[in-house]
Structure formats: structure tokens, C-alpha cells
């Protein structure tokens, strides 16, 4: 059933909020400001009561699916459980009520939290220092690419304009490098699904600034040749960028810094359990190696005998990347998670994430085609290519079938180097029973594909709306509500 829009619930004269009566003398506006500056038009905002508001959003929330509602094996997104204590502490007024331009002396709690979070993230990733300002993964990538630019500017090597990106990379990688002023050269994965040292060598010309890699890569496979890759890139005068989207596989096991990376961004809304909020706010801290610490965005958080402070005096800084200091409310939650889990818990989290993924992979591969049949890290990729050829059932049909069974589907059609790809990431917070239940459903869906494919084409049947017409949305864009 479709919900009314809040505008359609409007009734003239209703209100959802009462402000205190004004207690200062009120003078006519145009006695205090030029009337040519005053607004004449009246926007059409809804007039609803407080009860209307709550019922409206309550009804909308029933049409939405979150991790709290069920299993969410969305590959590459690390949809782990969002701990409730983090929400509680995130709502402390000692955090939410603080203004960004207060004196440093009055925000020591925040500065300590930012400093300690940076320190912990450096330890986890094997990097030297970092910035927590980037608002999201893509923003972190952009900031990371600015580190590249600053480094080569300082070295007088602005002829290095090319960044290498594997074809399996997230689309944000090439987009971020481009907006930072680089050109992209794509490199193909070899038959193992990995970057091959031989083909990399051919790309390492003297105009290459570096390479962006995800390790484990987007197929869920560890780039085994990483040490040699790092040496080759460094010997060619380039830098290595680590996309931390898949960091959940390796905490406490191996560190990007030890692999030879110079810059890494993390997605705290993936690895560090902060809620994704239906698409944000996230947080994409960037950590760097020794050779890049001089180029930090301003301000940097530092500590001396008097306490913590913001350092704006960074001679080779790349400049500012955010209005203030990042999505602080997200950072508070990530920090709470890090101290909850600690060194032992984070390591266990990664171990169990990999265990869960391999278990699911083993159980599903007997029925579904596992594209790269090898030990995976925290996620793996199936292909529905054969099912499509034999039964006309695509990755999309399987995803829509899962909706009727109370699951959020895996990521589909990414990475695009696998035809009809289904990318599954269970995360460590799911129990064996949950995984077994998911396997049963996936097997049922396979049976349905074989016996009654038409039924799957019709799925989902039991969701708030059924398959939506994406083509219509593009052909005749309706991007806001219009009064009838």
C-alpha cells in the first residue's frame, strides 16, 4: 500500500509544534531591514499535527529494512550490527550541544576523542597519522588523492598525472581520482581475479602517480603479490592508495601499512559498526604513512603538556577538506565501538567475518556457481550466468526472490567483471543459525528457478511495493511533489 506524502496529509490550521511566545519587543520587520530583502512568496510546507508526524514516519519505517530487521549480506557494504550503547552515548548532550568554534579549552573531551581515535586507527592500519574529517568513503578517497597531489607537488613531479585503477574497483575510485585532477588508466585482473605483476609492470611509466587498490579486493580475494606490487610501484616513484572498504577482513591480522600502502581511507560506517542511516552520514578517515604526514588537511589534532589542540600551522598542508571537523556524531560511535572491542575483539571480528563468509561460500557453491573457487576473505562472488542461460533467472530475480523471505539481498551486478554477479558479505555479527537459514532460502530459490521460473520473475509479492519501474522514473522524471 502506498503511503500518503506528508504534503497530502496537510490540513490548513494544523501545527506540529509550539514555540515559546516571544519575550522581546516586536518591531515591524521593515522598520529594521530594507523591505526589498524580505520574502514575499509563501512556500508550500505541510501543516500537520505532532501525531500526524509520528504516524507518518512510523508507517514509512515499516516500509524500510535495516540490520535490526534481519540479515543484510550486502557485499562490500559490511552491514554488521549497530550496537545500541553507541547510540546512547552518541546522544549525550555533552557531545551534541557543543559548538564547533568553542575555545579549545572547552572541548578537551572531543579533542581527546579525535586524537585517540586517530591513534587507534593508525595502529589498526599500520599508518603514521591521519585525519578524521572526510565525511564518507568517497570523500576520503578524494582527500587521499589530494595527499598524492601534495606529495608530487612538493617533489616537483607534477608530470605524474596518471592513477592506475583495477577494473574491479569501486566506481568511486576513478571518480575521486578524476576530481582531484588525475587521469585514470584501468588495469585488468588476471585469471585468478588478482592484479598480475607482469601486466602491472607495463603500466608503470614515469607519468604514473600511483595505484588505488582494495585488498582484499572486491572479489573477496587477497592480493597475494601485494609486497611485490608495492615494491614495483615505489621503485617506479609512485604511491599506493588503499581503499579500506574491505578492512573488516583483516583487523589484527595484517595491516595495509605493512603491505606497503602510503594512504588508506576507512569507512567507519562499515568496519567500525556505525549505522549507515539509509545512505549516510558516514565517515571516511584517511591515514597516511611517514612520507605523507606533512600534507595533512587543516586543522590537525595534536597534544602537548597543556592538553589537546588544533594545529593550523602546517606549512605543506593540502588545505581544508571539510567545513569543520567531520561527522563528529559518527566518530563518537566508532570510538565507542573500538574501545568496546579492543585489540582482542577487533581481531575476532575479522576472523569470524572470514569464517562466516567461507562457511556460506562452501554451502552455497554446491548449488550456485562460485566464480573464483578458492578461499575467500570476508565476502565472495557467485555468478547467476548459467541460471540465466538455462532457466532465464538473473541475479536480479534471485535478489527480488529473497525480498519475500525477509532478507536484504546481496549486492548484485558488482563487481562487473563477474557476469550476473551476486556478492555476499555476511559479517561477523551473524550466527550460524542465521547463515543456515539463508542457505535454505537460497536453495529453495534455486529450486524455484528450475521448476517454476515465472514465479521468481514476479517476485517480490509481499513487499510494500512490488518491482518498480526504473525506466519510467528516468524517462519522465518526477523529482518532487506538486500540488494537484
Amino acid at each position, binding site marked *: 500500500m502506498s503511503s500518503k506524502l506528508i504534503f497530502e496529509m496537510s490540513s490548513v490550521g494544523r501545527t506540529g509544534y509550539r514555540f515559546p511566545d516571544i519575550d522581546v519587543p516586536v518591531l515591524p520587520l521593515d522598520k529594521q531591514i530594507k523591505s526589498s530583502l524580505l520574502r514575499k512568496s509563501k512556500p508550500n510546507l505541510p501543516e500537520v499535527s505532532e501525531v500526524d508526524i509520528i504516524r507518518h514516519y512510523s508507517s514509512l519505517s515499516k516500509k524500510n529494512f535495516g540490520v535490526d530487521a534481519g540479515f543484510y549480506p550486502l557485499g562490500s557494504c559490511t552491514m554488521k550490527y549497530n550496537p545500541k550503547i553507541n547510540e546512547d552515548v552518541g546522544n549525550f548532550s555533552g557531545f551534541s550541544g557543543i559548538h564547533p568554534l568553542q575555545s579549545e579549552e572547552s*572541548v578537551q573531551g572531543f579533542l581527546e576523542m579525535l586524537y585517540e581515535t586517530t591513534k587507534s586507527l593508525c595502529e589498526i592500519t599500520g599508518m603514521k597519522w591521519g585525519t578524521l574529517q572526510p565525511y564518507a568513503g568517497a570523500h576520503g578517497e578524494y582527500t587521499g588523492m589530494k595527499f598524492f597531489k601534495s606529495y608530487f607537488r612538493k617533489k616537483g613531479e607534477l608530470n605524474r598525472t596518471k592513477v592506475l585503477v583495477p577494473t574491479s574497483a569501486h566506481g568511486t575510485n576513478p571518480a575521486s581520482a578524476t576530481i582531484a585532477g588525475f587521469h585514470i588508466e584501468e588495469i585488468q585482473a588476471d585469471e585468478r581475479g588478482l592484479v598480475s605483476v607482469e601486466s602491472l609492470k607495463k603500466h608503470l611509466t614515469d607519468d604514473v602517480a600511483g595505484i588505488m587498490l582494495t585488498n582484499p579486493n572486491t572479489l573477496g580475494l587477497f592480493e597475494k603479490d601485494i609486497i611485490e606490487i608495492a615494491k614495483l610501484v615505489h621503485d617506479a616513484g609512485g604511491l599506493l592508495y588503499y581503499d579500506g572498504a574491505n578492512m573488516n577482513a583483516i583487523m589484527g591480522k595484517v595491516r595495509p601499512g605493512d603491505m606497503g600502502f602510503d594512504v588508506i581511507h576507512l569507512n567507519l560506517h562499515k568496519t567500525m559498526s556505525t549505522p549507515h542511516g539509509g545512505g*549516510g552520514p558516514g565517515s571516511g578517515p584517511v591515514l597516511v604513512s611517514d612520507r605523507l604526514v606533512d600534507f595533512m588537511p587543516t586543522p590537525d589534532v595534536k597534544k602537548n603538556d597543556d592538553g589537546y589542540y588544533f594545529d593550523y600551522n602546517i606549512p605543506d598542508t593540502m588545505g581544508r577538506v571539510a567545513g569543520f571537523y567531520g561527522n563528529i556524531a559518527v566518530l563518537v560511535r566508532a570510538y565507542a565501538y573500538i574501545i568496546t572491542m579492543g585489540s582482542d575483539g577487533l581481531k575476532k571480528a575479522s576472523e569470524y567475518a572470514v569464517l562466516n563468509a567461507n562457511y556460506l561460500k562452501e554451502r552455497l557453491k554446491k548449488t550456485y556457481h562460485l566464480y573464483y573457487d578458492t578461499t575467500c576473505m570476508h565476502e565472495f562472488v557467485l555468478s547467476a550466468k548459467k541460471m540465466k542461460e538455462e532457466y532465464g533467472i538473473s541475479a536480479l530475480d534471485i535478489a527480488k526472490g529473497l525480498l519475500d523471505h525477509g532478507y536484504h539481498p546481496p549486492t548484485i551486478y558488482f563487481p562487473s567483471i563477474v557476469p550476473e554477479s551476486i556478492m555476499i558479505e555476511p559479517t561477523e555479527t551473524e550466527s550460524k543459525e542465521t547463515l543456515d537459514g539463508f542457505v535454505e532460502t537460497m536453495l529453495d530459490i534455486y529450486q524455484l528457478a528450475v521448476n517454476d521460473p515465472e514465479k521468481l520473475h514476479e517476485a517480490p509479492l509481499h513487499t510494500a511495493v*512490488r518491482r518498480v519501474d526504473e525506466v519510467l522514473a528516468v524517462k519522465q522524471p518526477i523529482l518532487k511533489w506538486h500540488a494537484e
Partner: protein
Amino acid sequence: MFSYLPQTEKDIQEMLEVIGVDSIDDLFKDIPKEILMKTPLNIPKGIAEYEVYKHMTGLAQKNRQGLSFMGSGSYDHIIPSVVGHVLQMPNFYTAYTPYQAEISQGILQSIFEFQTLICELTGMEVSNASLYDDHTAASEAITMAVNTRKKADRILVSGTIHPNTRAVIETFFSDIPVKIEEIKTENYVTSLDALKDTIDESVAAVLIQTPNFFGWAEDLTGLADLVHEHKALLIISSNPMSLGILKSQADWGADIAIGGTQPFGLSTYFGGPSVGYISTSTKNTRKMPGRIVGQTKDVDGQRAFVLTLQAREQHIKRQRATSNICSNQALAAMGSGIYLSTVGWKGLKEASSQSFQKAHYLYKRLTEELGLKALAEQDFFNEFTLIIPEADKVLTDMETQGIFAGVGLGQFFPDLKDAVTIAVTEKRTKEEMDAYVDLMKRVLK
């Protein structure tokens, strides 16, 4: 013992058996031995929930709250209780980006409503689903202009915009062939004469902020004609709370409207999250950055919402995308949407005009009774800048008495070290403002 990790010893053994390996370590065999960690991470071991609670309480207590008269891009407005309650509904905040439309209608519809609300307020025709903040929104808006006017490479930016916006833009365009130039100011507002002298067809966009960084409401009469005469795009950034009584970006003839929605239902939270908004005319829709929600139908003909026009975006277009943004500030944008829907136009006008009246009350008392001088004689909304001798000391003294009296501008402009920008919202009472004046009087002596 970790309550978020459900695996028992028995589970682990059974799972390893199915996988066909002896230990979890066997699953990490692809990692070269020489880099595999041999010692634990050098951070403390995990602690119990209650210990976390106590630790975080301690941190929060090391921050000091006071009666706030600080603004400069982050404002202490009243937040209706409903906002927080809706934002804590688990199906919203624990969801990912709404890629699966059939089970994401809640978020999708709320974004569609947000887009509509932003269009209504700014007077523009289309809006996206949100950007990070008002500062990064400026970079995105300029990028739109550069992509529209491909041969133009100059961007004119008023000297009165937020210095942090300016800094974010400088970083963004430092490595691409686009020149950022400042438009001179006169009495701390943008000088149209100065703009006239420098604008020509090599200019892709003109960026103005009103109310500007000093609080002054810019009179932009005639600006749009001048900008459009030279085929440039006009970008206007506004604190959206001001739009309750001041002209909207569309009223001034803007091509792109931007700003931050923090004043709507979001706490100051040390600067984040806010939400960047961006809206423009229909003809620019396909150049807009970020996610957009559209209305469509499902197979049964029911109204439904879906992420749309994705051919602009990075996951399809990769390096040819209009922007790299994917995660935005969805939940915070929803918060601002809830705020606007709750207060309605009447409430918004109320919050906006109370902020205006109260700011003018405080301005009057400070200038008339204490004899303080304004940085310039200009119209303003809820924020103004005064010259206060020895500003740093005055602000510190007032802070120790529990009043955050304003933002000293010395940290942004060395030659304005005695300038203080003071913001007043509807949340401040007459009593609080009178206490402010009394304290200032004592401190100034």
C-alpha cells in the same frame, strides 16, 4: 566475551569442518607470512558496555556547554522532540543506501519529501538527496557551473563568504585548471561595482553568500542580470533559516542554491553532521551531483519511489561521473525534513522572525547602551559583527561565566582580531540576553 559475536566453540568447529580446514588461521593463508601480524594490536583489550558508558560520560564531561551566542555556520535552534524519536527508528538508521527500492520505500519517500521541501524553500525546481555540508556543496555547485560553461575557467567568489567555504573550494580546485578569484567587498558586503569591473565571459560562476559570514544580509538587486549578461551561473548560499523571512535564492535569480540545513532539527554537534543542500532549475538536473529520488510506479501501478538518473553517478559512469559523491547525509537530511514538516511554514516563519527580533534586540542594547560599534552599518538576520576591544580576553572572561558570547574573527582574519560575530536564535530568552549585556558591561570595565 563479545556480545556482538554469536559464534560458539561448537559453531566454529562445525563451520571449519564444512569448509574443510583445521583452523581459522588456515583461512588467512593467502596473506604472505612476512606481513602477517605476530603480536596483538597495540590498543587496550575490549571492555564491558557499562565501562564504555562510564568512559564516554567522562569524555562528555570534559566538554563544556554554555549559553551559546555562537553561529558562523552552526546554530543553536530549538529542536522538537519528534525529530530525535523518528531518527532513532531502527529501520531508518540501520539501513543502507536504498538500492533495493521494494524494501526501502520509507527512506526513499522521506528523501523525496526532503527534495520537495528544499525546492519550496529555495524556490528552485529540483533538489538532490543531500550533500555533506554547505562548504563542500559550494565545490559541487562550482563543478556544475564549470561543466556547463566548458570554455570558462574563472570563478568569482565574494570576499564575504564563510572563510572555511573559501578554504574548501581552494583545496578542491587546486589541481584543476579553474581559477578562484575574490570579488572585492565594500563595508563588508559584496561590491557589485567591483564585480562589474572583473566579470566577462571567461567567468563560469559567481558565488555569493547571504546572510554573509559577518551576518549582513546582502542586497543582491541587479546581480542576477549582471551575471547572466556574461553567461555565468549565479550560485547563492544561504542559511536556510533566514529564508523564513528573507528572499529565497530563486527570488534573487540564482541558478544554483546551496547551503547547510543544520539549523533545521540538527544539533551543533561540534560541526557535524550537517547536511549540504543543492537545488537548481530543471534544465541543470542531469548535471547535479549525488543521489536523486524520483517517483515512479511498481508493476501493479502503485506509486513508488526509486533512486533515479543514476547515469550521472560514479558507480555507472566511473571517471566520467558528475561527482564522486555516493554516501551523503541521508539520516540528517531526514531530520531536517522532519523539522520542516513539523513546524510548517507558520512555525518556520516564527523561528525565523523570533531569531531576527531577538538578534535585533541584543544588537540594539549592545550598540546603544554599551556603545559598541558594528563592523559595518548593514542589515542583518540573526547574526551581526561588533568591534569589541580586546575581544579574545572579553570572550574568555564571558566564557568562564558560562556564556559563549560569540565567535572571534581573529582566527579567520588577522586584521579583524577585535571583531566578534554574535548569533541569536529563537531559543535565547530576553532574560538570557539581558544577562549577556550585564556580563559584557562588567567584563568591558
